[in-house]
């Protein structure tokens, strides 16, 4: 090693180390950027894709689902089960069962896009946890009723 | 690159022929039909011509499994697909000593299709766990197996479009 390189290396290296310390010192006095999650929550974007849920028609207050089964067919992972029955005296089918197996869902959004009536939408639930698989088999009709 | 005369000549020496295809339709510029005898010579030629092995894989069809080798070049637009139909005895040489990258690809094909590559240094399962030699997950079941014609471009159609669209990279090669 050349003599001039020897001291130069020491100088350049030492300088870079001090610059590095400067960066962290500056960050140390700057305000924090994270939040204390369970205490403070960030607002989630309205476009967030949670699991799907049934929606009500704002005018009639009823779920506009016509039990066509498009969503169930479009689903890549077969996680939607839809069933309906035709009651006497009514023209269209009534929804009797709308189940989502969220353990299989990959949140691709195909079902929402294919629905001809706009009867399903993404929910805003993001902190979901459970102890069994069955807890993620959602009965969406029940959820809709609970929501009121 | 693959359109130069010298390249065609070297191919002819191996009695191989390159066929231009429509890039806009297929995503590669030319295809070539290989045999188990010419594969290694062809691979050597490709290495000399500064191609790299993009991938190698297999497609199960009747009557034979088809091996697919795709080569491309770093500095020009040239993507060549080599096809090799496995003989009845199913013997195919390895090219892992020429293109070291094919070592893993061949092991993967061994995992998924059970094809044995001759002189391959190590054909232990790569992606599947040990002891799953009989699994061969990508082999088609009898009823799903299609013949070679059913999964190839129909010649008349391909020819017609071939003239219409000139690959954009022609001036570079």
């Amino acid at each position, binding site marked *: 090693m050349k003599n001039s390189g020897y001291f130069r290396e020491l100088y350049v290296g030492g300088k870079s180390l001090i610059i590095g*310390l400067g*960066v*962290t010192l500056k*960050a*140390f006095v700057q305000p924090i950027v994270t939040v204390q999650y369970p205490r403070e929550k960030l607002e989630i974007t309205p476009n967030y894709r949670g699991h799907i849920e049934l929606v009500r028609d704002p005018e009639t207050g009823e779920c506009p689902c016509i039990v066509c089964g498009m969503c169930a067919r479009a689903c890549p992972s077969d996680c939607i089960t839809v069933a309906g029955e035709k009651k006497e005296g009514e023209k269209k089918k009534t929804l009797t069962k709308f189940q989502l197996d969220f353990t299989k869902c990959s949140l691709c959004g195909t079902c929402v896009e294919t629905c001809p009536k706009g009867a399903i939408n993404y929910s805003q639930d993001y902190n979901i946890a459970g102890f069994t698989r069955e807890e993620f088999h959602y009965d969406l009709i029940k959820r809709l009723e609970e929501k009121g | 690159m693959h359109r130069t005369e010298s390249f065609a000549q070297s191919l002819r020496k191996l009695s191989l022929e390159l066929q231009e295809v429509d890039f806009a339709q297929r995503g590669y510029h030319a295809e070539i039909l290989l045999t188990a005898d010419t594969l290694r010579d062809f691979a050597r030629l490709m290495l000399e011509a500064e191609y790299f092995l993009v991938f190698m894989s297999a497609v199960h069809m009747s009557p034979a499994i088809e091996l697919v080798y795709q080569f491309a070049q770093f500095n020009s637009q040239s993507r060549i697909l080599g096809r090799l139909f496995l003989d009845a005895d199913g013997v195919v040489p390895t090219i892992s000593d020429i293109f070291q990258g094919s070592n893993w690809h061949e092991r993967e094909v061994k995992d998924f299709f059970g094809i044995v590559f001759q002189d391959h240094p190590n054909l232990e399962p790569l992606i599947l766990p040990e002891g799953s030699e009989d699994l061969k997950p990508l082999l088609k079941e009898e009823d799903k197996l299609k013949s070679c014609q059913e999964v190839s471009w129909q010649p008349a159609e391909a020819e017609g479009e071939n003239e219409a669209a000139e690959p954009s990279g022609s001036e570079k090669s």
Partner: protein
Amino acid sequence: METAVLYELLRMLISVVLVVAFVFINALIMGYLERKISAHIQRRPGLMEVGPHGILQLVIDGLKLIGKQLIVPKDADRTLFRAAPLLSFAPVVLPLIVIPFSPKLQVRDFDVGLIFILAISSLNVLAILMAGWGSNNKYSLFGAMRSVAQNISYEIPMLLSLLAVILMTNTFSMQGIVQAQGKIWFFLVQPVAFLIYIVASFAETNRAPFDLPEAESELTAGYHTEYSGMGFSLFMLAEYANMFVVCSIATVLFLGGWHGIPLPFGAYSGAIWFFIKAYGLMVFMIWVRWTYPRTRFDQLMNFCWKYMIPFALVNLLVTAVLVKL
């Protein structure tokens, strides 16, 4: 006569209990500082849950570690494995006996105080080697081997830099060294020795950027990979206590010990100055840890042999000549 001996014994006993207690308290403080400072350097709040600003978190963590099972790996050397954390703990308590926190606050002043500290603190390597060997884990062994090589090589520049100060004070007594700095602190007179000492002390305490023995991205956790519960926490206690020891030595030898602007705390102001300086250095060590990547082993050795030792030798030579003049 008898009462004097009894008094001295009682004093020693109380001091040792206090010193051991201090090691624990020091670990609590340092653990808290380390986590809080690193958090703010990384622009996150850090500990917040237990107590105001998470100040009691370390107490809870300590309780948790005590409650945990000490798992001994199947093929480990049980004796060595169990003894290693204890052995790492002992040598960090002993040096605290001779460190003068203030003119009066010192357990015992030896004539060879500094030599005593240096002799004791090199025992730490043995503990790490035992832990690494006893665990019967290749990663642990790697960590232990690295630690031994690193500690032994960096002891040389460390001693050489300290020797330069000794040449000026003509005493090994810690009290004497501090008293010699009444007018001027030695880091102004001996800046090169001070720098060398600080760099070497990073290596001696296995702190980043020289934390090769426990390089978690290479060796998972180095020599304490297999330790859990109290075994692990004793290593942590030892690490922090070790940091305190090296920083106290730096304070005594270079930063003027208890000297400082008089504070309105009477007899305690000396001790307060001492702790401010020592903890200031420790905060610096934390700051460095959360800034730099880790060096490679051969680079660490190269740095020692190519830069530290020549500089320390030259510095010692120049000091010797100047003192003689």
